[in-house]
């Protein structure tokens, strides 16, 4: 972005920030900043994204009430998660988050578990909270993008993927992940968002002609989980 564009973009960002900040509660205001980061990322407004990021980073970090208990609960959550025991994992991650509200890892994992459970509104809220705590957390942006992609929210999937790339520690790896999604993801919204993200950053991208098909169509279940066969009349 050239200098001529930067100043109006910053003014706009400041105005957008100031308006709701006066009206909304802290948590709502923070979520609003995350949403703004998504919207601005989708239009490659780097200055705007950085402005929102700075606003979030100025928040004081919540103090841990019981850091040792939080660490123990988080480790329990990881163990349950590794065993695919999602309910138990969720409970442990929530406990970790209650004991240490500033623990972005715990709330991020809670978001991941919600996404795996298909509970997308809760997943979105948890991942947004992780980003309020750590706005440059690329993995949370990536998971949030998947939530939006799977709920057919194309614009926000694009913005969240753009932030995934922007904040990735290794951008070449992120680029290849985006290419992988753009070529192999069966969910149209997510696939198209990945392609748009590559284009947004002027990265080489190849649109697929025939979209990938789901590896397992709906309805394929193990034989032993099927209902008992009925005798033909």
């Amino acid at each position: 972005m050239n200098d001529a564009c930067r100043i109006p973009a910053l003014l706009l960002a400041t105005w957008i920030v100031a308006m709701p900040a006066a009206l909304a509660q802290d948590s709502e205001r923070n979520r609003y900043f995350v949403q703004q980061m998504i919207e601005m990322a989708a239009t490659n407004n780097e200055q705007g994204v950085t402005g929102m990021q700075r606003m979030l980073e100025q928040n004081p970090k919540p103090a841990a009430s019981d850091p040792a208990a939080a660490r123990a609960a988080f480790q329990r959550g990881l163990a349950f998660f590794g065993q695919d025991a999602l309910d138990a994992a969720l409970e442990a991650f929530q406990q970790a988050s209650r004991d240490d509200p500033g623990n972005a890892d715990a709330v991020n994992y809670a978001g991941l578990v919600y996404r795996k459970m298909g509970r997308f509104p809760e997943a979105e809220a948890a991942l947004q909270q992780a980003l309020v705590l750590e706005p440059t957390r690329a993995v949370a942006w990536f998971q949030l993008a998947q939530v939006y992609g799977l709920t057919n929210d194309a614009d926000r999937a694009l913005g969240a993927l753009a932030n995934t790339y922007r904040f990735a520690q290794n951008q070449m790896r992120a680029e290849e992940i985006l290419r992988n999604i753009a070529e192999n993801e069966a969910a149209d919204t997510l696939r198209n968002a990945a392609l748009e993200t590559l284009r947004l950053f002027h990265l080489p991208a190849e649109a697929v002609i025939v979209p990938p098909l789901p590896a397992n169509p709906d309805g394929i279940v193990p034989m032993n989980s099927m209902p008992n066969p009925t005798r033909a009349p």
Partner: protein
Amino acid sequence: MNVPLFAFRGVELTLALALALALASALPASAGQYETIDYYVQQMIALASANEEAGVLIFREQMENLPRPEPGDARQASPFIQHGQERLASGQPKEALAAFRQAFIADPADPEIAGALGLTYLRSRRFKEAERLLVYALSLAPTRSASWLVLGQVYGQQGDAHRATGAFVNALRFAQDQPRVTEQLRQLATADPADAVRIGALQALQLARPAPAAKPVLPASPPPPQSTAPVRSKDGSSRAPEQTALPATTAGGLLGSLKQGGDLLGSLKQGLALLAKPADSATAEPVASPAADNGNPGQRIYRRGMPLTCLIVTFQNGKTANLGSGLLVSKDGLVITNNHVIDRAENLAVRCGDRESVARIRKRSKEPDLALLATTLKSKESFILNQTYSQDLIGLDVFVIGNPYGLESTFSTGVISGLREIDGVRYIQISAPISPGNSGGPVILRDGTVIGVATMGLKVGQNLNFAIAAADVIASPIFAPKQMQVRSMSTP
């Protein structure tokens, strides 16, 4: 560029080297991760093609001082690497790409994986991606000769002989096994189909050509006088004085080099005679596998029919709307399917075998339920429609290929159970299982001809399925007599 700027203590500081020193710290502050490493790689290429070794080494050092990415999970990457290598060796770049990509995502700090992914992109003719991966691989290991060699090919394939030369020179410079890389460059210089690859490889060989003293000397000859010994260049390598000028990166330059390079002339002529464009996977025509005719009719029919059987995907509002099957029926890419498959489609895509195309509707009819699609899939082979419709068909074996529920190229068998006429359309009743997604696919006889187009089934009962008789396809408005082939049932 090779003009000495000044000299002191026996070291000539050339203009290029001075520039290299100045530029080594001149990277724009706002450069991103890739832009930074690309800047250094491009400088190494430019200096290599000017044979400025000292400058190359300065930038190499700069690259080696860049922060390393965090190590990945080598154990997780390992099976993907092996799978990718196997697929690449067996000429399956698409599968190799998927495998190396997974390996790279698992361990992005391994230069071998990044290089292999770059090579696979090159084989897939995706040059921009190949360049990015190879530049990245070089940032991890700036002296990895194999990455320079492939990067040179990437530039050559894009017609950039100058950068190909620089990359090839670096491949030679950093090679641990110089004779092997020299031979690889010789192969590229003589046999690569891309002009700029040949020119780049030849120029690199010319730049690195050993000095006369390195050639075998006759035992009877006296040792050469000191004054005729090859000059020791500032980079320490031996080089004949007349070879300091870089040949022009044009066909004229190539011819000029040919005149000089006597040992290369023969092999270059040989290579030029062998030149052939590589097969492009997007336009390659389906060819029956050599193992196709092995006596098992099912396998023979599947292997011949699979590349001619198509997956049809329809789109509405930019999203996948419906899936079905189709059959390639002409050498110029006409595909038959059911009308209900493409109903309400805004856009269409077709994959026949491993080839893909967008498609447009050329003709359609509600009764019979048929549509004709035009694609870009030119083919030497196509399905032949069998116009027979008689009681003699009942009891014959049939074979069905299609994409039920998106399970691509599913093969099923059965027999012709009966002939039915429903609402004035003639159907072949078959016992071969079909499901949603099979619609529009071929029902094939043992002789490989298509006797029907799979269309519908009875929900009650078992294996009561129906295909529009090929005879009615031929009688329908979608039939194109000049392009489609027709046959009657072979005499048993």
